[in-house]
């Protein structure tokens, strides 16, 4: 892969795009009987790309496409993250789609395109590129969220996501426009015509650290990103959309889309908006505190597990925001963000996997009560669920604990004591609902096992999903004990 050709720099994205096209080609070429195998091709192809990525992991930092993109170790990390997410979503989708009377191949196609766009999103260093990649992701997600179109609730969720997403896109866009406009203003020091480039804008902001218009643009951009990560008060759509979306898509929203938002936010905060720390710092601090509290409190008495996991995801976003806020003062916080994201990925997908298995055709109604007696019916699923939730709750020996620890350490080093207090309160509240869920699965005097749950639990996860769940659980435990490889990826460079 010669460094000269910019296209070679984005080979994983290109491969994903080609794989996506290949799926469509296969659908037209192959006989209908063989269509069931196409998702496996998708999974295998993604695994191949992941392996290739692992072997070419040590990429140097370099710009590509006239500075539209920046390839960096952190970018590699996020590439792997999105790739793993999309593989897992594909695995979940295979199981979930089998209940539905909808086209299958297109789903996998869209997932692949979205994954590639997410990679570009966190690599982009240009607002045009950012917007295009972001919209590709968003439009893909509109489609995926409303994919189970025979279910009115799914469509309703799609509509809600559509409107809120478009609104946030508009806000983000207007923010970009303001930033672009003010930085090109000839009357100001450091005027630049390259304001669409992060670097150009950063130079301008450096020269004008107190411009009101720039500040207004910055907050609008932040609110657009806050929608993606589900930060307070832009989190309000989450429960409805998570509930209505197909479970694999919920996973994609909760993990990958959120991570993409954080990838962007981290770059913006550390590289571009740094001169406006007086604004970004307090804003994100308050956002983090409110997000942690609101997510946990709203989840406290939630009975629908998809809404619950959505709201718990909100609180996790708050935790990651805490690390992002600390990143301004403490470099290790960046590592903490990535580590947290990975721990969150592993734990979340374990939980979503179990949810997918137990969901059945009506994906949108899953109550806590449906988990009663799960441990008796399927110790495996219950174990995966317990480990996943334990990791989400941040309990040793799971990876989630180490992640939380790093966030705390980073926040401590950065001196955000008030936020730490809020975070402690959040952890304690979160224990209530995580354990409420585990309790449902394990303490069997709560309610009789519903026949639906019993049937699904006995049917099990199937080979692919089962292997994936086992691997996730194992990964969660191993990362809890032995953080070496991931941490040296995150921080070794």
């Amino acid at each position, binding site marked *: 892969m010669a460094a000269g050709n910019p296209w070679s720099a984005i080979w994983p994205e290109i491969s994903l795009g080609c794989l996506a096209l290949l799926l469509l080609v296969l659908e037209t070429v192959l006989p209908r009987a063989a269509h069931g195998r196409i998702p496996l091709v998708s999974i295998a192809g993604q695994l191949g790309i992941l392996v290739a990525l692992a072997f070419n992991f040590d990429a140097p930092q370099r710009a590509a496409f006239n500075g539209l993109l920046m390839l960096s170790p952190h970018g590699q990390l996020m590439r792997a993250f999105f790739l793993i997410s999309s593989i897992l979503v594909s695995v979940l989708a295979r199981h979930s789609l089998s209940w539905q009377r909808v086209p299958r191949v297109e789903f996998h196609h869209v997932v692949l395109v979205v994954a590639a766009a997410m990679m570009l999103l966190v690599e982009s260093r240009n*607002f*045009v590129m950012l*917007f*295009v990649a972001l*919209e590709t992701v*968003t*439009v893909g997600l*509109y*489609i995926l969220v*409303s994919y189970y*179109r*025979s279910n*009115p*609730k799914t*469509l*309703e*969720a*799609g*509509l*809600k996501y*559509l*409107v809120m997403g*478009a*609104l946030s*896109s*508009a806000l983000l*866009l*207007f923010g*970009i*426009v*303001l930033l*672009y*406009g003010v930085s*090109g*203003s*000839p009357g100001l020091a450091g*005027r630049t*015509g*390259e*304001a*669409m480039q992060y670097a150009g804008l950063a130079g301008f902001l450096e020269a004008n650290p107190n411009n009101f218009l720039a500040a207004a643009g910055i907050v609008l951009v932040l609110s657009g990103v806050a929608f993606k990560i589900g930060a307070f008060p832009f989190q309000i759509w989450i*429960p*409805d959309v998570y*509930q*209505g979306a197909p479970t694999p898509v919920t996973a994609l929203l909760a993990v990958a889309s959120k991570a993409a938002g954080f990838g962007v936010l981290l770059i913006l905060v550390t590289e571009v908006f740094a001169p406006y720390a007086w604004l970004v710092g307090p804003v994100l601090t308050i956002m983090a505190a409110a997000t942690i509290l609101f997510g946990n409190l709203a989840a406290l008495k939630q009975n629908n597990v998809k809404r619950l996991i959505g709201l718990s995801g909100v609180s996790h976003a708050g935790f990651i925001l805490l690390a992002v806020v600390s990143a301004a003062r403490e470099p290790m916080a960046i590592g903490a963000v990535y580590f947290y994201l990975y721990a969150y990925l592993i734990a979340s997908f374990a939980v979503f996997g179990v949810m997918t298995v137990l969901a059945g055709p009506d994906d*949108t109604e899953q109550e806590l009560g449906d988990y009663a007696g799960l441990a008796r019916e399927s110790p495996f699923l219950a174990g995966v669920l317990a480990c996943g939730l334990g990791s989400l709750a941040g309990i040793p020996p799971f990876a989630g604990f180490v992640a939380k620890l790093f966030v705390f350490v980073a926040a401590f080093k950065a001196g955000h004591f008030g936020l730490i207090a809020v975070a402690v309160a959040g952890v304690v509240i979160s224990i209530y609902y995580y354990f409420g869920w585990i309790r449902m699965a394990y303490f069997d005097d709560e309610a009789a096992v519903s026949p639906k749950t019993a049937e699904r639990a006995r049917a099990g996860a199937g080979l692919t999903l089962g292997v994936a769940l086992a691997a996730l659980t194992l990964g969660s435990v191993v990362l809890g004990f032995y953080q070496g490889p991931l941490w040296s990826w995150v921080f070794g460079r």
Partner: protein
Amino acid sequence: MKPSLDAYVLLSAALFAIGFLGVLVRRNTLVIYMCLELMLVAATLALVAFSRFNGTEDGDVFVFFILTVAAAEVAVGLAIIVALFRARQTVEVDRLDSMKH
């Protein structure tokens, strides 16, 4: 005398605000969607004005992408609305609250 940049930006902002207002107060999904499109277009107006007055180039190019994206969004959005109407026989958002709390 030519109109100033401020005038363009204010106009754009006003259009953006009107769009936002529409999203806030209207119940009809289609109208809400039109208002969202209005907001996007309002942003492009400011972009073009900035580009022109500041003599920078990227803004104009950006408009192309914005319009294309908007078109794609409209297509997908309308498809969802149509499907939803088929399922629920309504596109009034205050009836679309089967998922809450």
